[in-house]
């Protein structure tokens, strides 16, 4: 059953140094508040998993929290590069970053296998791509009925998955809607699940397009209003596109980045 905790308690009890951590949300519902708490608590040596690393992982990587990144598209959507990600990969600053790189279809199916507790998933993918030559988690498998060779990807099973959702009830049942992305699969693939929510409500009245994660599939729920900012929470907040644009100059320079993180993350909350 999910415990309802403060964000500080939830991160302290669920996210440990060296963990494999997935913070998911496909543009929508990205758990920024939780990531900032991870940074404040100084959790390090993380293997970060995420289809679209986005600004959230640029921040974690730039602060030195990660030793490895598992991903499929690492940019600032609609804006350009993730400069901290590039600096880590190209120059090893602030520390080298190991990569395991996939396509979106591959990553999505790795989560599906993880949520299903299968060791791998099958897809038509990677054919002719050099990606397969660089990743130990891409292989092939032969159909026992037709003989066709297909791509196989290894399951991903994070130690912790962190997601943001619209709301939970007092028992810890979680409800999210809008672009539901890979949230459910990422949560169900993990050993431990932390969900930040905009609010706790008495009852989760049904909503079109809503996904419900029952309390017994979640470990901690923490209230974090506007906890997806600069991403958004459909029905509560809108995407702060200006922030995404502003992140480009902030993140280009190491010192500007560090000063920003100090002012807005380390000394905040």
């Amino acid at each position, binding site marked *: 059953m999910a415990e309802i905790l403060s964000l500080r308690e939830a991160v302290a009890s669920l996210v440990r140094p060296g963990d494999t951590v997935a913070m998911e949300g*496909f543009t929508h519902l990205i758990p920024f508040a939780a990531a900032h708490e991870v940074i404040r608590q100084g959790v390090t040596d993380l293997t970060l998993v995420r289809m679209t690393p986005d600004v959230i992982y640029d921040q974690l990587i730039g602060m030195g929290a990660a030793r490895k990144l598992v991903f499929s598209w690492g940019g600032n959507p609609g804006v350009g590069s*993730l400069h901290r990600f590039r600096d880590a990969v190209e120059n090893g600053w602030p520390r080298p970053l190991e990569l395991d790189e996939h396509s*979106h279809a591959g990553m999505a*199916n790795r989560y599906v296998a993880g949520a299903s507790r299968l060791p791998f998933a099958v897809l038509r993918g990677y054919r002719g791509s*050099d990606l397969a030559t660089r990743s130990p988690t891409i292989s092939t498998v032969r159909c026992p009925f037709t003989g066709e060779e297909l791509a196989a990807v290894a399951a991903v099973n994070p130690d912790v998955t962190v997601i943001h959702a619209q709301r939970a009830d007092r028992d810890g049942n979680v409800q999210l809607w809008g*672009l539901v992305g890979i949230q459910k699969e990422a949560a169900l693939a993990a050993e431990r699940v932390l969900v930040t929510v905009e609010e706790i409500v008495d009852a989760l009245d049904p909503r079109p397009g809503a996904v419900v994660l029952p309390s017994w599939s979640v470990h901690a729920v923490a209230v974090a209003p506007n906890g997806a900012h600069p991403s958004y929470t459909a029905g509560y907040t809108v995407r702060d596109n200006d922030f995404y644009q502003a992140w480009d100059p902030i993140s280009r320079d190491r010192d500007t980045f560090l000063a920003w993180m100090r002012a807005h993350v380390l000394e905040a909350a």
Partner: protein
Amino acid sequence: MSWTPDELMTVNAARALAGARTCFVGIGLPSAAANLARRTVRPGLVLIYESGTLGSKPSRLPLSIGDGELADTADAVVSVPEIFNYWLQAGRIDVGFLGAAQVDRYANINTTVIDRGPGRPEGRLPGAGGAPEIAAGCGKVLMVVRHSRRNLVERLDFVTTVGHGSGPGDRARLGLPGAGPVAVITDLGVLRPDPETAELVLTELHPGVSAEQAAEATGWKLRTAPDVGETEPPTAEELAALRELSDRGA
């Protein structure tokens, strides 16, 4: 009315969607073109975004593939695994529309790493995203790329996404079901694969652009098709629709 080469590129890219029913839309230039097509040549075009939306009808250009309006205006919102497995992989999408960092003469794409030469670390690009499977599984692929030696290169540093591989027959050999790239639309004109060799050749030029200019801006020795067409300038309607879209964009 005056217009820029970028505007004509986008208008021309939208026109290429005239016959399509469904389009899997990459973000950036492809999204602008696909949304413009819905306002001009193809009002019923079904836009599919990898964030899980089927039939998005945004009123302004989304900054990302996950903007709220893509979901709010969609016929259906599905999970990311579903969009890739049940819709893309299953071969239900007519056209995949992609941008690219590096494209070679067989319309293969690199969006992973750039070789900066000996002793220097590889330059990092964003990565594959949905492209490898979009290019594999859609009925055909359109690409929109700014015409430069940086983007249209002699040799890819890394093959992220297969277009026509190393030439005719390669897609079949690799088991890629779709027809692959049929046009690379640029701000100078259009390149299309030669029916015999699968090599991208110049088939269309913007008004006022010469074949020499296009060749100069191409990283391989660009061949010119026997009959090179001239791109129709944007109509007043096309231009108005594009500018309205862009003004409303983020």
